[in-house]
């Protein structure tokens, strides 16, 4: 295996982005930041890979228009996934492992505010038995939350504690679209939106984009004194049918964590839980120790742009390696309804 590290990261998170669905004008400054961080130009990028979906904002072939932001004459080596850009990062990492390229720039973008996000996401469900009922993502998460409450696995107070910690931490994150801790009692006094979920239990609808730079070996060492070396990268998925999944657990998250040899020694984890109770599921099923610092960025409850929310977790975790805050971190990404798909990316200061 080649040693591959995260060496660049740039992001934007906005409550209501007023630009185009393909977000090219949002990506241009992000790529510029990546060039500045690395000292590279686009000629130094061996592979480009993006994550997005046209359903989000109703623009067809938006991923094709988005590559205007790269400048693709002469043509570039490029690919796309209809998933969170964390999975684009996985493809880029594989591409580097093949030896074909030494560097990659991964990006994602999405303008969720252009439509009704919780409704649009019904299209990711089984088209025969679920989509005809248009179950919105918040309702599905609420069904999952109640299962855990009824089973005594967590309660509304534990969920509010996740929210309060996230929004308090988000006060220090300039990109957060929702921030400001209060108290568990105050949070619990707020009205239900999708009983047993209150609005703050769900990640805010967020527009945004993010870019991550990967590099192998010496290319990484040229850029950073302390590259965030990827020492474990894995993803798994649970089945399509909600009824036959054990929704209070995340088997795919457990498997992903096991596939990288477990998460012992992780000091900081950026966990992509778009709903408060899902962080509780992930902490247990990823096997995170009690003293692991979770989401110092504020996490997805403070801002969760579709198709970059997971990649941002990896970028935020990598920054803690670069600045020496931690020696071993986790970036986690999820996709699909009720934590169906899970990706873990373990990064370390030494390889």
């Amino acid at each position: 295996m080649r040693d591959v590290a995260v060496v660049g990261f740039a992001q934007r998170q906005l409550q209501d982005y007023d630009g185009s669905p393909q977000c090219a004008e949002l990506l241009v400054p992000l790529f510029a930041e990546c060039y500045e961080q690395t000292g590279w130009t686009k000629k130094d990028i061996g592979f480009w890979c993006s994550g997005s979906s046209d359903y989000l904002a109703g623009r067809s072939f938006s991923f094709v228009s988005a590559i205007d932001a790269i400048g693709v004459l002469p043509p570039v080596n490029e690919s796309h996934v209809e998933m969170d850009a964390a999975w684009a990062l996985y493809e880029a990492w594989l591409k580097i492992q093949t030896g074909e390229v030494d560097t990659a720039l991964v990006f994602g973008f999405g303008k969720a505010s252009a439509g009704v996000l919780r409704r649009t996401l019904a299209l990711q469900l089984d088209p025969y038995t679920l989509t005809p009922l248009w179950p919105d993502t918040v309702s599905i998460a609420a069904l999952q939350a109640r299962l855990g409450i009824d089973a005594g696995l967590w309660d509304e107070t534990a969920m509010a504690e996740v929210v309060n910690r996230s929004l308090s931490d988000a006060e220090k994150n300039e990109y957060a679209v929702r921030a400001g801790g209060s108290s568990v009692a105050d949070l619990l006094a707020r009205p239900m939106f999708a009983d047993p979920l209150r609005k703050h239990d769900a990640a805010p609808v967020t527009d945004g984009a993010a870019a991550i730079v990967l590099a192998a070996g010496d290319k990484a060492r040229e850029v950073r004194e302390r590259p965030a070396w990827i020492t474990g990268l894995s993803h798994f998925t649970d089945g399509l049918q909600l009824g036959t999944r054990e929704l209070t657990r995340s088997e795919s998250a457990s498997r992903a964590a096991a596939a990288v040899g477990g998460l012992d020694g992780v000091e900081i984890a950026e966990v992509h839980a778009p709903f408060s109770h899902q962080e509780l599921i992930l902490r247990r099923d990823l096997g995170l120790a009690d003293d692991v610092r979770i989401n110092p960025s504020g996490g997805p409850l403070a801002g969760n742009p579709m198709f970059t929310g997971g990649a941002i977790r990896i970028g935020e975790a990598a920054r803690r390696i670069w600045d020496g805050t931690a020696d071993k971190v986790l970036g986690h990404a999820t996709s699909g309804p009720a934590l169906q798909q899970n990706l873990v990316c373990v990064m370390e200061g030494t390889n």
Partner: protein
Amino acid sequence: MSRTLSAPVTVSFDYTRSVGPVIGRFLTGLRDGRFVGARLSDGRVVVPPPEFDPVTHEATADFVDLPETGTVTSWTWVSEPVAGQPFDRPFAFALVTLDGADAPFLHAVDVASPDEISTGLKVRARWAAERTGAMTDLVFEPAPVEPVETPTEPVSTSSTNETPAEPVTGIVTPVSLDYTYAASPEESAFFRGLSEGRIVGQRCPKCEKVYVPPRPACPTDGVPTVEEIELSDTGTVTTFCIVNVPFLGQKIAPPYVSAYILLDGADIALQHLILDIPVDEIRMGLRVKAVWKPRDEWGTTIENISHFAPADEPDADFDTYKHHL
């Protein structure tokens, strides 16, 4: 004035899906007012039946009929329903485990307030009078409190029951999504220019090419194209096609010409219609001029230009547009 122009847009498409033998059997059951589940290799009875066993990966073959009563195993209150959901007023989504089944499935429960639903509530299906063989053929409602005679053991149907005469083989799933569509700042400048009778392009600061409509970034250099350039409404046909095929939503009777027009001063051609010339006289190099609609019909749209028509000039030299093909 906001930075960008935006407008509502609806994207809709009816997906026609064939359903196969397993889902087809389930949907045929719904049409006939009954639930068909399957017994899996691990002994669990599951509805809707999965097409393949999650453990052995064998095709599902052991079908069972299930009663129309069950228990709520989880629920939520949909306080703000979205379009297409079973009710257009607040309602409950629930996981319902049918009596005799071992796994729940998601559906709606018709109750008036969250106080009327709880985990453990007994519910029964209420079938629509007109059924097509779709999940929308039913909703659940609280079951009467008196005990109803339901079989405690699921009845196997795989060998005993005959297949209905006309099984459901397909469904149509309409998808319609409403968006607020925003133009990029550069595209907004283009459309605002059109509303004043001007065609606005932008020049890339690096390669100096002029794009019309302007794009959020130069596709060659990946930098914003900031310098605004007002272009002539006269140009050269670089390439064209004669549209002979009718299609849904077509506004002009075929045959007609759709062409790439390189406006004077631009480096990228604009696509538009060529009219006022017999289609067999259209040619590369033809000089054309925009025909604008009456000013009082103008909006922020390319439709302000009705079409392009011959400009009564000699044809352009091939050399003047050969780099723009």
